């Protein structure tokens, strides 16, 4: 039985479809314009020396090498601290904690923490790490604040992937006489490693994109930092890519440089997302 739609309903249908196409085209168009504009303004300024040297007033050259190094610094230090903490907390919450109510409260808290504006972390990090713990405005203080920011992300994604490990794996392992930790280490963690890696990469994405925290807890110096000794390593303090972008755009009014940094950040984000989906697929097999 085939019935044609009445003209009114056909018009209605067509109208709805046109609206949906329009909103899709508008969103994609905006995004493409944005990316295109950034690349258009940014790419001309990118050169090998731009990426590999520090800015020099004497020679009148611009370089963002320090910002790249500082970004790597905060990524590595934050992850080294946040990963074991976050994964450990997630394992405790899903595998060990027996008080359902407590777990629910903690899960609710981490979910809330994952959603609050980063400037609040920035404020708290400044008060705790820079002032109370006397770390001053250093990359270490910034990294530790970033740890607090990414912990919820890492805990949540790890928990989610631990929960997808079938209960039958756990039973099978315990049924063979494994202790609990042995079971987690040999069966549960290997089957959830893809989720943990995804969480990690998401965390890296948030760290790379973060600016408020780093403005509040690290100095905005665009010069090269000295990491040669442990003491210098602890005291080093300089702008990451996002902060450098702010400095060049707002304080030096060098918009070309800012756009070049923006292009680099865009490329980094794309790379990180690609790595995330690739790692997820690879580890899932």
């Amino acid at each position: 039985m085939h019935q044609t739609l009445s003209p009114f309903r056909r018009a209605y249908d067509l109208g709805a479809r046109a609206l949906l196409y329009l909103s899709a085209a508008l969103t994609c168009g905006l995004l493409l314009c944005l990316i295109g504009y950034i690349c258009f303004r940014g790419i001309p300024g990118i050169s090998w020396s731009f990426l590999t040297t520090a800015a020099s007033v004497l020679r009148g050259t611009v370089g963002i090498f320090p910002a790249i190094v500082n970004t790597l610094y905060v990524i590595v230090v934050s992850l080294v601290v946040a990963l074991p903490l976050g994964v450990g907390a997630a394992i405790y919450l899903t595998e060990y904690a027996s008080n359902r109510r407590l777990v629910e409260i903690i899960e609710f808290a981490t979910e809330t923490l994952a959603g609050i504006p980063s400037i609040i972390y920035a404020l708290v990090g400044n008060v705790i790490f820079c002032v109370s713990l006397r770390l001053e405005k250093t990359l270490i203080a910034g990294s530790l604040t970033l740890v607090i920011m990414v912990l919820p992300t890492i805990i949540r994604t790890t928990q989610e992937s631990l929960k997808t490990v079938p209960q039958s794996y756990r039973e099978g392992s315990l049924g063979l006489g494994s202790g609990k930790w042995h079971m987690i280490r040999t069966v549960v963690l290997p089957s959830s490693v893809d989720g943990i890696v995804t969480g990690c990469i998401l965390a890296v994405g948030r760290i790379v994109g973060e600016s408020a925290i780093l403005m509040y807890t690290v100095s905005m110096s665009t010069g090269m930092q000295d990491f040669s000794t442990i003491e210098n390593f602890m005291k080093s303090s300089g702008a990451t890519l996002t902060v450098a972008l702010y400095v060049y755009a707002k304080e030096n009014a060098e918009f070309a440089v800012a756009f070049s940094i923006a292009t680099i950040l865009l490329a980094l984000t794309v790379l990180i997302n690609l790595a995330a989906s690739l790692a997820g697929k690879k580890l899932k097999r």
Partner: protein
Amino acid sequence: MEEPTILKAEGLDLFYGEHQALKSISMDIPEHRITALIGPSGCGKSTFLKTINRMNDLVPGVTIKGKITYHGQDIYGPGLDVTWLRKRIGMVFQKPNPFPMSIYDNVAYGPRTHGVRSRKKLDELVEQSLRSAAIWDEVKDRLKKSALSLSGGQQQRLCIARALAVEPDVLLMDEATSALDPISTSKIEDLSTELKKNYTIVMVTHNMQQAARVADKTAFFLLGELVEFDDTVQMFSKPRDKRTEDYITGRFG
């Protein structure tokens, strides 16, 4: 000829919170025999099976009264090491649950857990276990392949091999064939009959023909009570209890 008792339950009560799932179960399970536990869903047969290797410990809110012993040793006694118990009393689950690793690593998992490191010893154990589980010929050329590539029936025999690799002396089978096709089921039934020479088998089954075919002794559970426990032949020809008769003739359940 009666075999010596290997597992002995005396007045065993089990509660899930307020709900009493087992009511004063007393039964002597003989060594080197296949004992089948039958009864309608929710009658407590699986629960009873899981008390034997303490898999019930994983369920929150379980309390147990009474006594159950293995070779005279109290399974819920204070000095008992659960990992030791589960090494001695292996379990095969309702759904095949191979780990997402290679066939070899699945079988070697148990021995490695219990400290076997020698490559030679592991190779031996893996081959011997796979042979005992009647799956060696099907997998010997692809031991390094993922266990998840096997069919359901093969996976279940792999799980039996995995359980045998820790050299237990009791094997608990929790509806081990209910998720399998008839051919795989009959393979596992034949296998059970073979295995009872060296192992004691306790199996839960929904399939009464299966109990009649393979079990030496059968226990009928109803609403948490052990209604009848007897030689299988006896129970299926001349049940002593009216409720057993109703169940095995298909009047309920």
